[in-house]
């Protein structure tokens, strides 16, 4: 776990051995964008490379260059955990710097959508339980979390550091640049996840799958795509918070407004 408590626009942060936080804070809109880079030997994987907006991509690119000493050809894999533009619209921009043998992966149902962001290379579909071995034998495992919040959504587990890349799960709206979850985070998480999820059943499956991973292999760090990283000593607390989350509230509001009986 890093001793740093905040992140900035210039420095990647090593959260665990070979796990780098490439986040871009968003003071005006409270919607930070956090790609991650995983390094093993001479090879790198980028998780959820991020936004195509210039002010976001420029920061991410600079941080990747910092970690890889300017050699982006070391990026051999890009993993996209669902199809939202804030996770993967940057892929065509990143293609200017990576080699042709760099592969892009996404859940099957997300692959159909992601291709429309204009990447030149094929997006390889993933299924539940698929693994990716790279570098010096580092293994990533992909666990599908359907409808949380898209049908083709997943989380990624790094067995070497017991790090879970949770994508939008455990994400939150935050205008600050705090690295780790603090006292403000439960509200920030509830406001984001509670509104961007529609199905309690989908959320419960995702949480139980994550708890299963924790029971079987251990989870020491949760790295979401927005908001703050959840350290080991807060994981139980945040699992409980998210279990209690009310979701899909806009359905009842609109049903009432439009006189629709559900």
């Amino acid at each position: 776990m890093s001793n740093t408590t905040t992140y900035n626009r210039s420095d990647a942060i090593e959260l665990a051995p070979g796990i780098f936080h490439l986040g871009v804070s968003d003071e005006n809109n409270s919607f930070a964008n956090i790609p991650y880079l995983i390094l093993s030997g001479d090879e790198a994987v980028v998780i959820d490379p991020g936004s195509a907006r210039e002010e976001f991509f420029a920061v991410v690119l600079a941080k990747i260059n910092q970690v890889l000493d300017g050699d982006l050809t070391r990026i051999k894999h890009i993993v996209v955990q669902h199809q939202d533009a804030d996770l993967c619209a940057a892929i065509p921009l990143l293609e200017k710097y990576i080699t042709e043998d760099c592969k892009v992966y996404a859940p099957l149902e997300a692959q159909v959508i992601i291709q429309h962001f204009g990447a030149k290379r094929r997006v390889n579909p993933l299924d539940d339980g698929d693994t990716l071995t790279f570098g010096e034998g580092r293994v990533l495992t992909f666990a599908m979390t359907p409808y949380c919040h898209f049908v083709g959504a997943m989380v990624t587990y790094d067995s070497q550091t017991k790090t879970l890349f949770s994508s939008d799960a455990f994400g939150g709206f935050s205008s600050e640049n705090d690295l780790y979850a603090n006292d403000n985070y439960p509200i920030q998480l509830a406001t984001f996840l509670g509104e961007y999820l529609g199905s309690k059943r989908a959320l419960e499956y995702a949480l139980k799958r994550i708890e299963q991973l924790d029971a079987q292999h251990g989870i020491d760090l949760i790295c979401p795509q927005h908001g703050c990283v959840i350290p080991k000593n807060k994981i139980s607390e945040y699992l409980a918070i998210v279990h209690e989350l009310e979701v899909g509230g806009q359905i009842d509001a609109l049903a009432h407004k439009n006189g629709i009986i559900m």
Partner: protein
Amino acid sequence: MKTVDAMNEFLSNARKLAVSQKNRDRLVEVSSRAGITLSHKLELTSDISDQQIEKLITELSDLAIIKIAAKRIFRKHGYHF
């Protein structure tokens, strides 16, 4: 009083979402357009009506995340946003 309770819970959440003074000032200004007076610390300093809350939701379109939070909180208090 339902309106005040709802508004105070919204402001409590807003203080954790709009942490910078710049964003808090934006919320104060937007609220004033709905006839709602807030201190610079995002505390309610006037009475408030259902109509003002509905107007606030409309005016918050300039602050997307705060509007999302507002709709969520006011729904808990029986509003249908």
